């Protein structure tokens, strides 16, 4: 059996997929990837279905190798230095890792989470339809916890194939859209403070929640409500007046009022926001949020159509270089 070996890894790196659904009524959070679009891209690049399990890499680096075979991988999400035996690797492009080679990944620069798609997916036993790691519930495969040095993940040996690349539409750095509620009436004029304020993500954030630093949000009737259900993106405001955006490892219910909910299409963008980088919120209607949801879902379904052969570009470049028209070659690539 081919094994992908974790030789070194920082904290907050774990196997994630689209999460487990259907047991929130028993207090089991969905978990799953913080940035679903990047997860889908990583999977599609290696021929998997969009929401197969992949490795979600936290902000720090990792070192990986393979045993007993060759594995096809693809890196997406937060950009970071990546090299195969010291040769720089492109993001959003598949590559193969052979026995004896070392894949080195540095600290995230353009975001927080990167995704390592694995051809054939991750071996393991799904619980509630998912391999996603949730350490608190003791769930996830093949280890029910974040990855550690020395871990080995059973994978499928790569099939001979050309490498693929994917050009995703560039994301705009626009405000994070929210739908107000379900308890925005607990805040009165502070809703305006929330929407006009400048926010940053605190360094104490994790997969359960992102704490926000910014203006004080005061409550009209105190900060306790009778416990109520939560969703990914719920923004609850505890007694401190500093909001917390609930992320996929959230508690399934909570006793703080929720001023708004980050829309699904923007939650991955928020998840990738680095601590300290300011941003704003913008309120939209449920209908606008659902239009954005459908647009995102369509984009994810269309990812396989956006794949191109990575090797074609390289072969073309070689051909053009050997014909002594290097300048043209660069232009030809740029037009791709």
């Amino acid at each position, binding site marked *: 059996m081919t094994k992908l070996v974790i030789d070194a890894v920082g904290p907050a790196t774990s196997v994630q997929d689209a999460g487990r659904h259907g047991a929130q009524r028993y207090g089991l959070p969905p978990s799953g990837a913080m940035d679903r679009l990047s997860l889908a891209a990583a999977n599609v690049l290696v021929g998997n279905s969009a929401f197969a399990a992949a490795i979600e890499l936290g902000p720090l680096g990792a070192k990986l190798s393979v045993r007993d075979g060759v594995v096809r991988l693809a890196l997406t999400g937060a950009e970071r230095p990546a090299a195969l035996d010291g040769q720089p690797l492109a993001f959003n492009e598949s590559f193969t890792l052979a026995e004896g080679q070392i894949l080195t990944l540095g600290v995230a620069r353009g975001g927080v989470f990167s995704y390592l798609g694995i051809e054939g997916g991750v071996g393991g036993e799904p619980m509630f339809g998912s391999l996603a790691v949730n350490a608190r519930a003791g769930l996830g495969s093949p280890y029910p916890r974040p990855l550690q040095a020395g871990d080995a993940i059973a994978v499928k040996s790569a099939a001979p194939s050309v490498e693929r690349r994917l050009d995703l539409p560039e994301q705009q750095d626009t405000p994070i859209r929210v739908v107000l509620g379900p308890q925005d009436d607990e805040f009165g004029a502070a809703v305006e403070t929330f929407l006009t304020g400048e926010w940053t993500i605190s360094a104490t954030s994790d997969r359960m929640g992102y704490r926000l630093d910014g203006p004080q949000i005061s409550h009209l009737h105190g900060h306790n409500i009778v416990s109520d259900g939560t969703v990914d993106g719920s923004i609850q405001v505890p007694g401190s007046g500093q909001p917390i955006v609930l992320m996929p490892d959230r508690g399934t219910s909570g006793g703080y009022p929720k001023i708004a909910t980050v829309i699904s299409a923007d939650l991955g963008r928020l998840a990738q926001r680095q601590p300290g980088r300011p941003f704003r919120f913008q309120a939209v209607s449920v209908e606008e949020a659902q239009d954005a*949801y459908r647009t995102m879902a369509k984009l994810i379904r269309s990812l396989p159509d956006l794949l191109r052969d990575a090797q074609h570009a390289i072969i073309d470049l070689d051909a053009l270089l050997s014909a002594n028209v290097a300048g043209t070659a660069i232009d030809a690539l740029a037009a791709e």
Partner: protein
Amino acid sequence: MTTPPPRMLPSGDTAITVEFGRDISDESNRRVLALDRKLKQAPIAGILETVPTYRSLLVHYDPETIGFGALSDQLTALAHTSDESETVAKRRWRIPVCYGGEHGIDLEDAAQALNITPDALVARHAAGDYRVAMIGFTPGWSYLSGLDPALAMPRRQAPRLHTPAGTISVGGIQTGIQCLAGPSGWHLLGRTPVRTYQLHREPIFLLEPGDAISFAQIDAKEFAERDDAASHGEVVAELLSA
């Protein structure tokens, strides 16, 4: 009797909070569970899962199948026709609890705050007729309604970061069964060997919202025995009626 229709509150673009009330009330909770049951009997296309709480039903749905407006209309109509008598508890459990000592480190302080003896506190807590109002926060954490109002206590000023699995505690007018170790601001009265969430056991989740619960006091020796049995996958709770 006419009851006001529930409020349909958006929880983002993929969920609706169907709110029956803002306070802890058995009536609201029965209406929540009645709508939940109704949706199980007559599913609406697009609904992915439901999460009952004390006072609201959170309905997760797929916006590619149904929009907020259409789903709100259907849920409003359904809530109107729900018969609350349908949710009379079918299952009744007896849950063993070892009160006080190392298993309930707040028992003495709590009794003092309530101006009763620890034994009286245990007797009144164990005599309660409880119902699982909701399960939430962490896997298996069961919030019970039916606490004797005389036993209500404000939460601790500073929450504890580590409380043991199986803790039976009181916070405000609520009592509950905490399944996994974790943080808690409630007062720890005792521990049960029962696992309300246990992987590789059938069922993985023992309790359902709406189940009736009573507690039975056990001593530390019995706790140790049953805890050992539970660690090997035994249920150790008594199902009195199914």
